[in-house]
């Protein structure tokens, strides 16, 4: 019984990425587009999945408790520019880069959390304000040059092996935090009923700060990956840093649907894999960037529609059963 349940959960966790992969593989083969999902294409899929997965984890930890953090893109930009330049100046190598960027991102996350809890303003308002400040600081620093490390041997985090190690470590840590620590328990309690949770002694403010710090760490890791892939992170202005988290939505929605089969962080990552496969598949099929954006938007809408209405499938079955029961009761009464 228990083994069957575990088997079902593993199956349901993997079914969507596998189905989407198979769909595009067949479609590409049928239309004569070769090379989908293998070689460089697979490397791209892995990079995109891990990057989007990290950003989605950062966004999800706050969004699910009612805090939309518009500043996470700016956190990535600022932490990567500061951390990247610092690590480069000190010549600390890849681990130094990772530590510098992630620690600075965590500190920025903590600032975001503390400001949110201190100001007691709506999170969207606070985070838009903070995003503008972070963007401005990143712009002012280093004469608006950002960070440019093209060809630097520190940039190892976009490599497939490193990406996969990062994924495994991050998921393991997040699953433990979400499912086996007080932070995770309290976060879920606050997500379900803030007033009741606070009344029984759960410290909402402290939990919020923890969540912002974790989000900061995720964005720091994503920053390391982005910098490793592109070699450059330029400062942004006018809330342009939002483009860094636009890939988070679909993984987050898919994660919400499939979380019951594993754990929320794992499900989010599977969502990121699905998104990466779709993006790669569409590119292989020669779909233009603008049309890809439209299609991605439609897919996000489709998932939202499904997740908002999926209960109706269960309901329909219950209705059929009740109608059969009513009919049987009528016949018995005759």
């Amino acid at each position, binding site marked *: 019984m228990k083994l069957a349940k575990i088997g079902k959960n593993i199956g349901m966790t993997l079914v969507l990425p596998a189905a989407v992969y198979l769909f595009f593989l067949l479609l590409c083969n049928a239309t004569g587009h070769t090379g989908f999902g293998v070689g460089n294409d697979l490397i791209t899929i892995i990079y995109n999945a891990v990057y989007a997965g990290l950003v989605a984890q950062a966004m999800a930890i706050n969004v699910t408790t009612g805090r939309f953090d518009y500043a996470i893109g700016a956190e990535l930009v600022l932490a990567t520019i500061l951390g990247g330049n610092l690590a480069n100046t000190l010549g600390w190598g890849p681990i130094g880069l990772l530590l510098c960027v992630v620690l600075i991102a965590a500190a920025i996350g903590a600032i975001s959390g503390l400001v949110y809890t201190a100001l007691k303003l709506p999170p969207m308002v606070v985070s838009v304000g903070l995003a503008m400040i972070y963007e401005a600081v990143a712009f002012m620093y280093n004469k608006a040059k950002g960070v440019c490390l093209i060809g630097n041997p520190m940039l190892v985090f976009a490599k497939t092996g490193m990406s996969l190690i990062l994924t495994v470590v991050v998921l393991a840590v997040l699953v433990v935090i979400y499912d*086996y620590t007080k932070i995770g328990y309290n976060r*879920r309690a606050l997500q379900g*009923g803030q007033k*009741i949770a606070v009344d029984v002694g759960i410290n909402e403010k402290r939990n919020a700060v923890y969540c912002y710090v974790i989000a900061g760490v995720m964005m720091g890791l994503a920053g390391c990956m982005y910098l490793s892939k592109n070699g450059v992170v330029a400062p942004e202005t006018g809330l342009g840093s939002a483009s860094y988290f636009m890939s988070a939505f679909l993984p987050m929605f898919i994660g919400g649907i499939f979380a019951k089969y594993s754990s929320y962080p794992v499900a989010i990552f599977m969502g990121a894999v699905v998104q990466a496969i779709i993006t790669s598949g569409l590119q292989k099929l020669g779909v233009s960037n603008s049309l890809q954006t439209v299609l991605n938007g439609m897919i996000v809408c489709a998932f939202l529609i499904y997740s908002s209405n999926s209960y109706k499938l269960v309901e329909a079955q219950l209705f059929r059963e009740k*109608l059969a029961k*009513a009919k049987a009761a009528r016949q018995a009464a005759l």
Partner: protein
Amino acid sequence: MQEDKLIVETRQLCKNFGPTVALNNVSIKIYRGQITGLIGENGSGKSTITSILSGMQPPTSGEMFFKGKPHHPASMIEGAELGIGMIVQEQGTVPGISIAENIFLGEEKKFGKLFINRSAMIKEAQKALDAIGFTGVDASAPIESLNMQDRKLVEIAKTVYANPEVLVVDETTTALSQKGREIIYGIMRKMRDEDKAVIFISHDLEELMETCDTLTVLRDGVLITTLSKEEMNEDVIKRCMVGREMTGDYYRADFSEPISDEVVLRMKDVTTAFGMLMNFSMELHKGEILGIGGLSHCGMHELGKALFGEMKLLEGEVLDLRYNEPISSPKQALKRGYGYVSKDRDKEALVLTASIADNILAAGFDKIQRGPFLLPSDTKKYINGLIRDLSIKCASPKQDVQYLSGGNKQKVVFGKWVGRGCDILVLDCPTRGVDIGVKAAMYQLIDKMRREGKSIVMISEELTELIGMCDRLLVLKDGQLAGEFTHAGGMNENQIIDVMI
């Protein structure tokens, strides 16, 4: 009572909310080995005194002593740590987490400082549930797998697990099934036998008289009297509560008028999408009070929703015979002069964060609008009239509904539809959580409406109310009609209960 048994004492306790005096120099003593009942009209200060005692809010002035020492808890958590457990009226469980996590909400540290031992938590939660006799439930299951009544039992398990020395049960029984009530009565008696103290707040006189050793009556924030078991008498309690003799008829007096032959509403072969109701048919006559009774999950609440067009029907129809058209949505029901008082007032009947005025006006815009405009003088007259008629205790019509006592909230719900002058009124537990004085006023109002030719469906879990008010009573069991009683044919409580169970 021996003074060494004294566990809680308040001296000259006062609590003001702005200009409103909620408690006025209340001095009360609570003893070990006793179940102390607290009764009073809505807004009399019952919940205020226990909420101060448990640390939910501070007093304005006065002193409190717990086990002989000055007592001023800064929060409910501190109150609970000192040994005062409280089960409140409102929902106290959190959705999205398991039953076990709800029981140990805020207490996760018992199962590890950093990492939580989930299996140990589930095992301990199972013990907590078993300890109160709530068996057959899996503590690891999501809280959503339980209905609202059973979720209350989870709260009770949580409170009792903390092993309090004083247990406050604040109007909890109205939210419980019969099984749940038996569990809470058992817990209260057990605590008394263990030489602990229980404070029991309820509007149900019968329940209080049966359970409590002493009964303290409050009125308008003032302690009126404390009655011993021997002194407890229904008439005496009522007189103490309302401050005058209860004159006139409590329920309806006149059942001599024949019910009109005119059928205004017909429900035919209805099976609802949710709940138990199936293959149900009924007719409602003009000027009739039709009672609907049964056990908690018999389908009667779904019936109320179906009559108001708020419940999806899988089969059958609700037909308004005055207009010869089916009622399939609340909008249409409103248009045809229907009103509906829901049992779950906080979720379905009120906007808690809106004012009393806005809540009342929400159902009555079309009654006072002049073209596209609402004149301030009209709205003021409409709202103030209802507040006065229903004796809603509030600082002003602008006060948010969430800050009203349970009974006053119910009066606002009632007022919405009464003010609208509905022709067909569906009342689902209309007097739930309402004190005896207002109950009597509501019964008189319902009877007045009947005499004016309005038709009323009265759904209730209180059999005495149904017998006292209804021309006809339909009893549901497992979602189907189990019996029909009329006043002409005699309504015998025992016969009705036989049909019900």
